[in-house]
């Protein structure tokens, strides 16, 4: 009985640690919407993709502010997943002599963004975003 309880606790602990590891190393199949926005902006900008340019693209597309903290941590996460590659560019006077972090999308990134877009497109097929029917008053 005691052994069984210990086994259960160890199994729970292992499952908790695995979950934590998965969270930390992002063993997640589908990308998130902000990750998609970054991948899309990077793909659109091509060779001119870097932090400030991606931020402007996202802000213009969404009409919302994009915090640099969220942008850079997501860039790191996407790079960790192998969806992006970054390198330091040359310094420019326009930036006070500071270098850019140039971003390029990888084949895996294109595939992941494509899957996300396809899922959204499939899910929203036939849905009209008009507030007349099926909407609950907030």
């Amino acid at each position, binding site marked *: 009985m005691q052994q069984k309880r210990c086994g259960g606790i160890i199994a729970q602990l292992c499952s908790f640690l695995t979950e934590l590891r998965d969270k930390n190393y992002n063993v997640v199949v589908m990308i998130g919407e902000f990750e998609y926005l970054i991948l899309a902006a990077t793909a659109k900008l091509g060779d001119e993709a870097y932090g*400030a340019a991606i931020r402007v693209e996202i802000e213009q597309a969404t009409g919302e502010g994009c*915090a640099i903290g*969220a942008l850079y*941590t997501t860039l790191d996460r996407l790079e960790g997943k192998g969806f992006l590659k970054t390198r*330091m560019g040359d310094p420019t006077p326009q930036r*006070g002599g500071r270098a850019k*972090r140039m971003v390029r999308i990888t084949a895996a990134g294109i595939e992941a963004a494509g899957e996300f877009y396809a899922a959204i497109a499939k899910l929203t097929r036939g849905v009209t975003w008009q507030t007349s029917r099926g909407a609950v008053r907030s």
Partner: protein
Amino acid sequence: MANQSRSGQVITGFCSHFTERAAQMLDPSEREAVLGDLRQLGVSQGRALREILGLIAWRQAAQWADWRPWLNLFLLMIPLSLLLSVLARFAASQSAVYMWLYANNLDVALLGNYGFWYELAHSVPIVLAIFLKLFCWSWTAGFALGLIAGRTARVRRGLLVLVLVLGVSIGAPAYLAFYWRFLYRTLPGLPAQSDPVSAVWFYRSLFPFLVETALVIIPSLLGIHYGQLARAFPRPWRAGFAALGSLAMAELLYQSSLLWAFWSPHLAWRLEHWPQLNMFAWIVYWPLLYLLAMRTTRRMGANHLYKSPVNVS
């Protein structure tokens, strides 16, 4: 109007200064890219500061999402800090007796007494040995934390100082009160602690904080700094430092067993009669050798020992 623009300039300068200072917490390449982006986007200095602080918060939160920093915090930093705080209080009460004896009772007649000088020559090395040992232990604890901290080091430094201050002001007095109560109950013949030394406010209240600051807080912060620098050494060196640090920590536990093993007389007796551990007593002082070696190699310009420039943020 002129006043308004002047105050605006002051605020902008203030924010600009703090933005640069805060950005030091980021990796060098990231700092370069982020400050460049903010400059290019033309955001105000106030907003730039907010954005940089936001990024630092994101970065720290990401570090602490892992289980290892928490494990280090609860298994290493907090127990060590509390033990060092207890030791600092204990060392302060031990050395305060000597200090009170000489500083509070000194007069011309005493200076002419041969016995006074004899006793002084006997007690000064005792106090210095207590202080030196505490310094080395604190440095080693900081070194161990710095060696494993990585990018969470800055937050850990803050946490360490906080735990040490709480330890010396709340944790250690409560623990030592329990310790003395236990001893009086077990050994009723012990002399009372309400001695003339603890009756003096300076020795009772201020002196332990001075000892904690000078011999625990400052050395442990110094140790964190050196521990982080040691991360640039090749792996075998780091393994050697980790082994030395572990032995020094084991010695810390062994030599302070009087303070923590009292609730189990059998365990305390066993530890007291374990001469093998005394063989490693000198290891406690390894920080002195390390600092000396660092100073010598730096003078000789032996920078090849370092693998590459290290990120100490």
